[in-house]
């Protein structure tokens, strides 16, 4: 279907973040993390903008062009009260996906993301927004779809 080149990027998010240290402290205080499931052991990861989270992700290979696909993600540290939103866009075209993925947290603490669809070839960015309380921190990767 297409060849995919995935490269991790860590960028400063356009949303927010007052102080990474506060989040880090909250993380340590939470004390409710769970271990990463073994199936994510060999998956790539990307750090969030401030560095408080690492997002492990499992994408289909190759990524399908103009067909719906699902992905899985694991956010570390895995906090019960952290939420994940996944979206994607083509910044050079000034548009996102035409679909809104649904995200479900599984019993093992990982996230199942369904309803992704890249309808055009070219440069896409996938955004993982981790929100805990009032603070959202973004990790993102880019893919090139032919």
């Amino acid at each position, binding site marked *: 279907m297409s060849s995919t080149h995935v490269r991790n990027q860590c960028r400063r998010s356009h949303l927010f973040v007052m102080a990474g240290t506060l989040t880090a402290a909250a993380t340590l205080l939470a004390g409710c993390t769970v271990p990463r499931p073994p199936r994510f052991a060999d998956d790539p990861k990307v750090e969030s903008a401030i560095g408080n989270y690492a997002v492990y992700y499992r994408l289909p290979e190759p990524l399908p*062009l*103009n067909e*719906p696909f699902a992905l899985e993600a694991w956010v570390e540290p895995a906090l019960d009260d952290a939420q994940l939103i996944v979206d994607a866009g*083509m910044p050079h*075209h*000034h*548009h*996102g996906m*035409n*679909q*809104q*993925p*649904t995200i479900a947290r599984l019993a093992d603490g990982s996230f199942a993301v*369904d*309803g992704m*669809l890249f*309808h*055009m*070839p*070219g440069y896409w960015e996938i955004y993982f927004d981790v929100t805990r309380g009032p603070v959202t921190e973004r990790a993102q990767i880019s893919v090139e779809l*032919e």
Partner: protein
Amino acid sequence: MSVLDRSRLVLPLVVMLAISAAAAPSVHAQAGAAEDTSTQQAAAPEWTARQIRRIRRLSPMPPLPADPTNRFADHPGAVALGQALFFDRRLAGPGAGERDLSCAGCHDPRSDFDDGKPIAEAVGTMTRHTPSLWNVGHQRWFFWDGRTDTLWSQPLDPIEAANEMASSRGRVIRLLRDDARLRTQYENIFGGLPPSLLGDDLPADARPVPGDATHAHARAWQALTKQQQGDMNRCFANVGKALAAYMRRLDRGNSPFDRFVATLEQPDAPTPHLSLGAQRGLALFVGRGNCLSCHGGTRLTDDEFHDTGVAPLHETLPADAGRYAGIAALQKNPFRAAGEFSDDRTGAIAKRAQHIKQTPQNYGRFKTPSLRNVALTAPYMHQGQLPTLEAVVRFYSTREGARPPGHHEEQILQPLHLTDREIADLVAFLHSLTGTAPAAALLTPPTASTSSTAPTAPTPPAPATRPR
């Protein structure tokens, strides 16, 4: 649209292409002249591995996809009933008068299942161009705004639209009930008509009319019992499923382009199937033209929605929200894939609609049409704004007359600065996408011998009251 009318559109294009051919003698410029001679084979482009990879993704035409939301999609009896209904003028409301406002009235097989007009005209004048039905069974969304997600729910909309056929599900059910041949066909497929619809008290027209409870059709609908409403909805959905079974047969693939791709890496193939100009156009199509951004895949469409920036046909036409309104309509449509009349409410087709979202970015976007058979279906764009393929390619090349994108709009299209010969080359390539028509028997009203399957149940007695 008559053959004469159609020739008025085609002739200028042929003349234009002939002029282009004079300037570039190697270009086969006539419509339908995509087949090539062996003398031009020696000058064929040397395709790179990347080009070949991209070209191969455009062919062959895929097989007809299954439609699990319609378990009668491939039922021969449903095809026959659908064909009969497609050409039946009695589906239209009394506003049609003496005009043929059957489905075929606008989707005329003699005009490649469109009407050849910029803006469709039926009981009233509409605001969009009639799309052709060739290969319609492959589509992901239906209508320019994608307001339905199944082929069987698509025809239900124009039957009841006030400016199209201005009819009602009540009228359609009475026709099925009172026409012995149609009733036999229907009952052989879907079972007997429900008893609640067999009484003499069924109104001539009845349908829900959102936003107008005082409409005569709405009052008649409200006077029906819940049982009658439910039964009528079920039968109306079945009518759509029969029409869809017929429309799915309107496949038109196997074009000269497909034959070219099949022999692309066979240097000893007898002919390249495409003129040199069409091959140059193909190279532009998969390269500098950036056409693949929206017209990729084996049907040369992404089946999604974009704003090309083309100006309205007339300034008097109302602003058209396009996909923005289409998403809202789809989510309210009781006949959608996830709705109660679907035969697969949780499958992949139903899931598509669950993931779409109405955002400001959707405003003014329209569905990318397939380019297969595009040379047959002038004029072009959602309001028929551009009369010829040459005008379309020139519009994308120069962007002259295009509206500037707003801050919510995607910014994909940039001027290509194509030369006149390059424009002619792309047009020649687009002509090579005309496929082989299906069996002629599908393109005319069914004859008595083909319109009915052998009855498996006795034909019911004619009711006392007949609408016609």
